[in-house]
């Protein structure tokens, strides 16, 4: 009973999406747009379902690149934060570098990466990693900074070295924060992967989108946009679930 009720409430709370679909349809019909200008939502959804086999390789590629970049970038951010926490001199190099990386718009970074490492998978992966790096760095650092003095004192008294403080105590404080950063960056990773694919046009959803656009295949190009949105939302929801699990495990 309560389960059915909560599902019902979940559907009711999706009203903005239903509103969006209906107003999209009304907008196309009322303006009398032909399908080369803007397709109706039902045809786009039909194209996604009938041509799903065409979408699958692109979805898998983009998903793989986004997840790989998410994991890699988060790990590098974590290591960078641990280095800064470890040594003040290292923080002198890592902190300005992190500030600059934070401020570079990914649109400016992708073309440079593409030119340096060449068009292809490494460029896509490098772009997604760079966009995930900074949040992981900042959140890990703030987690490590939140280790209470008393805990550190206890570890010092018991004769623990810095590595033991880190692995026994620091990880406990840094992991929940790291999961927050994963949740925040998950959609950005999908966006970065798609932007890189769009620009280089090799494979993935971004490339599919750019091809459909150049062939004026509006249903396919809007369908790609729809599929990309669903993929991105799913990645976000997955990250959210993982965050909750880690949090309930650690606290």
């Amino acid at each position: 009973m309560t389960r059915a009720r909560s599902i019902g409430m979940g559907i009711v709370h999706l009203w903005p999406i239903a509103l969006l679909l209906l107003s999209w349809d009304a907008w196309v019909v009322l303006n009398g747009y032909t399908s080369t200008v803007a397709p109706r939502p039902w045809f786009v959804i039909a194209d996604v379902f009938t041509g799903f086999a065409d979408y699958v390789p692109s979805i898998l590629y983009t998903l793989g690149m986004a997840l790989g970049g998410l994991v890699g970038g988060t790990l590098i951010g974590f290591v960078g934060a641990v280095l800064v926490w470890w040594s003040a001199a290292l923080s002198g190099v890592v902190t300005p570098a992190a500030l600059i990386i934070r401020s570079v718009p990914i649109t400016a970074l992708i073309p440079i990466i593409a030119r340096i490492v060449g068009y292809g998978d490494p460029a896509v992966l490098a772009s997604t990693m760079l966009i995930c790096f900074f949040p992981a760095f900042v959140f890990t650092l703030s987690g490590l900074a939140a280790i209470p003095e008393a805990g550190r004192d206890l570890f010092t008294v018991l004769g623990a070295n810095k590595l033991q403080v880190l692995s026994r105590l620091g990880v406990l404080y840094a992991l929940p924060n790291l999961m927050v950063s994963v949740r925040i960056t998950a959609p950005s990773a999908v966006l970065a992967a798609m932007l890189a694919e769009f620009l280089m046009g090799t494979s993935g959803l971004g490339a599919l989108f750019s091809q459909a656009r150049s062939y004026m295949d509006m249903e396919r190009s809007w369908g790609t946009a729809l599929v990309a949105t669903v993929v991105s939302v799913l990645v976000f929801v997955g990250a959210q679930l993982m965050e909750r699990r880690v949090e309930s495990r650690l606290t």
Partner: protein
Amino acid sequence: MNTPTRTSVKVAYSLAGGALLILAAQLIGQFGLAGRAWPPVMDVVSYVTTPAGASLLWRNTLVTFSSAAQGFLLGAVIAVLGAALALVVPIIRPGMDRFAAILHAVPTIALAPLLITTVGREDAPAVIAALSVGFVMFVTMASGFANTSSAHQDLFTVIGANRTRRLARLELPRAVPAFFDGLTLSAPAAILGATIGEWFGAPMGLGLVIVSAMQNYQMALLWAAAMAATIMSLLAYLVFIQLQRVAMRRFT
């Protein structure tokens, strides 16, 4: 007691580290360690100082800046109004929250076809910037509004304040720090959104310059345009973080 010396040591480390990074970038370029695509920093700087390069960069930076600023204003205003509306009319709140999360997860590149047919190539950068800013602002404002203590809420109810008065006297002032947090986070998002919009056939702007320089292998121009976008984003961030500090001192 020892805090001033520690901050000055930190600043010295950061300055030394920054200089070291620039030197490393220069050396990588000079010895061609990353191939032809990584020019020495001095080449990029000397390109920026030529009159042609400077005027090209300046004009396009202004275009991107104005799209980003328009989008920033539009997105911030709509998001604050939306969060306030969701606060005053609680029944729409869960729907709005979920919608904002979905809207945030939409890769902005996917909205490009929609925006080009609706608002046109010239205005698409500002609208994409507004969308990127809007989500960040909505989420930070919603959590800022929710930040009031229940004792305060009860006090206002007992005194007989209605919903709008409570919003004006209690929740809005409490949400000021969150507002500035949101601005700090969304300033770079606005510039990113504007440059994404410019990839889709805008007539001018840094995003366009970056893509065309990449395709024509003009590495000095590519790096200079990327640096211009980065500096703009960095400056916006630094300005807003200063504002945030002032606001934090006043409102907490």
